[in-house]
């Protein structure tokens, strides 16, 4: 806020021109400026797209009082720091950095701009002016696991993983546990593609899984390619991060949707009225951060009802995706009846539960 104004006052026309966007808005009505840094293009139809929907929600909520800007397709690493620094130095009061790999650049810039507030998605390092936030997507996976368990005919579900990190393993386990609650014979086959976004490889992985008998495909990668394959081969699947029914009108049963709208609105309001504090938020179905669109018409009513029981149970706290008894792959009980895994265990999850085939790559 102050640098551009200062430059203008000092008559440094060149400097003001460099920061023209910031300077012009500062002149107008001095709205509260919020910046967003995205790792992908806003049209990725997944992760970044949903963050941008959140940005628009902020803009709609506050209208002329807030000015939002975004920078898309920012590579994780040195470039990210340059972009974040540019936003901070051009008068932004609150900056959201929406990828794990922006963690260290965010903290580095935050040190130099103590008056600017930062929000970093999916990270774990905080500072006085850096908050972190993420979503309990595993809660959504328990819901789609229930649907998969009831709808698979071959009792084989294909799961396309990106990297064997706790975030992804947690999703696989939540899915598998929920699936086997309704169908103890069903199993999950996992194929790792070692990428968040490689449509060709994701499609090949989907084909391999379908060829080996999977009649439902789910994924923890970002492209709609697996769903496209499912549609082509006539099997079922779930969308990832956003509604992907445009790519698979027949195959997509439902989709786990990332919904940052409310969080972004709340945090922006807090920053505007001065109540903003550094904190960690891990929201789920209850807070609306994880959401579902309408179930597809192909989901039978009893399956819908069972999925709703899980979803509502998670929301009102009567059900937890990781409540005992939980068995490991060898069939030994690792969590007794009545036990619930705490967040620390969930955040470091590095084992498969019973019902997942194969070994977890270490």
């Amino acid at each position, binding site marked *: 806020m102050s640098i551009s104004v200062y430059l203008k006052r000092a008559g440094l026309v060149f400097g003001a021109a460099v920061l023209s966007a910031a300077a012009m808005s500062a002149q107008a009505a001095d709205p509260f400026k919020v910046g967003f840094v995205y790792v992908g293009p806003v049209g990725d139809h997944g992760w970044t797209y949903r963050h941008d929907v959140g940005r628009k929600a902020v803009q709609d909520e506050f209208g002329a009082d807030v000015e939002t800007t975004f920078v898309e397709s920012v590579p994780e690493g040195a470039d990210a720091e340059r972009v974040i620094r540019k936003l901070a130095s051009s008068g932004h009061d609150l900056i959201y950095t929406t990828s794990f790999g922006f963690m260290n650049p965010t903290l580095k810039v935050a040190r130099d701009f103590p008056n600017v507030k930062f929000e970093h998605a999916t990270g774990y390092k905080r500072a006085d002016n850096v908050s972190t936030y993420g979503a309990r997507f595993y809660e959504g996976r328990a819901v789609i696991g229930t649907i998969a368990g009831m709808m698979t005919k071959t009792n084989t579900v294909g799961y396309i993983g990106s990297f064997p990190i706790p975030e992804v393993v947690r999703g696989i386990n939540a899915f598998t546990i929920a699936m086997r609650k309704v169908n103890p014979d069903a199993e999950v*086959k996992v*194929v790792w593609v070692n*990428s968040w976004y490689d449509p060709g490889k994701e499609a090949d992985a989907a084909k391999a899984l379908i060829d080996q008998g999977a009649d439902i495909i789910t994924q923890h990668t970002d492209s709609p390619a697996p769903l496209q394959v499912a549609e082509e081969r006539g099997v079922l699947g779930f969308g990832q991060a956003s509604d992907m029914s445009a790519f698979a009108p027949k195959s997509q049963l439902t989709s786990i949707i990332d919904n940052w709208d409310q969080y972004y609105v709340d945090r922006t309001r807090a920053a505007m009225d001065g109540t903003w504090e550094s904190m960690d938020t891990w929201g789920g179905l209850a807070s609306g951060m994880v959401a579902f669109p309408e179930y597809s018409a192909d989901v039978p009513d009893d399956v819908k009802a069972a999925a709703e029981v899980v979803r509502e149970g998670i929301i009102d706290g009567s059900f937890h995706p990781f409540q005992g008894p939980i068995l490991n792959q060898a069939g030994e009980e690792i969590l007794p009846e009545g036990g619930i895994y705490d967040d620390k265990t969930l955040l470091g999850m590095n084992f498969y539960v019973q019902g997942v085939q194969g070994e977890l790559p270490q």
Partner: protein
Amino acid sequence: MNETLMLTILTIITAATPLVYAAIGELVVERSGVLNLGVEGMMLGGAVCSFAVAHHTGSATLAIVAGMLAGMLLALIFAFLTLSLQSSQVATGLALTIFGIGLSALLGQSLVGIAFEGLPRLHVPWLSELPVVGRLLFSHDALVYGSFAIVILVSWFLNRTRAGLVLRAVGDSHDAAHALGIKVIRVRYMATLFGGACAGLGGAYLSLVYTPMWVENMSAGRGWIALALVVFAVWQPGRLLLGAYLFGGISILQLHGQALGINVPSQLMSMLPYLTTILVLVLISRDRGRIRRNAPASIGQSFYPTT
């Protein structure tokens, strides 16, 4: 025949086809003595342009032509810089790849997240209905058949025609060819443009058939595999076809292995095309005779016409 096995083979065919296109084009380019490292960039150019045309016109034929033209246009830039202005082929090729990645991302901005139903599969009456053979051989899209046809044509052209002989002569010794009155630069221009068209076709296959959509950098390194493939094939079209199916097969079987619970590190499998290529390079440098016979002797060298 086992259903899984057959489906696996069908998947391998789709994985190998873009490699065949990109590599066969580069093979011709290299046989004319030009090393174009811009395959990846030309593939992406072809992918984005063919998808854009498919989306706006709905015509698969126009889309394929657009992919070829886009690849040729990028190849023309490369040819002008390296052949007419005699810039370094290696540096220019690398620049072409980087340029192609950026340009395709820019052109494709409005195409991200759009679905396209893909190319129609050819249906041959009677033949397509045969039990095993029908699905294996007569149920693909036109581009798959085209990839086989182009390998056969290139093989015939290089080994059986006078024009092919001229092209090889230019690649082996541009000075000798020049002395014989062959227009070296013109031959190399044509070869480079052919290479661009093929890379564009490979890209078109990616965005029209393999995963019918456009995303940034969707070739994901396949252009580099194609370059390795040319060396792996020791500049012979037949071996190139074999190599493409081998490389494609490895990447698909790796995924199948995982689903079956066979624990081979997938990173190792991703390395395999390059590892085998290095092995072939080692063998070539050991054997000065038989294997080396097809390696174009003046590859990568700029030609300065005397008189």
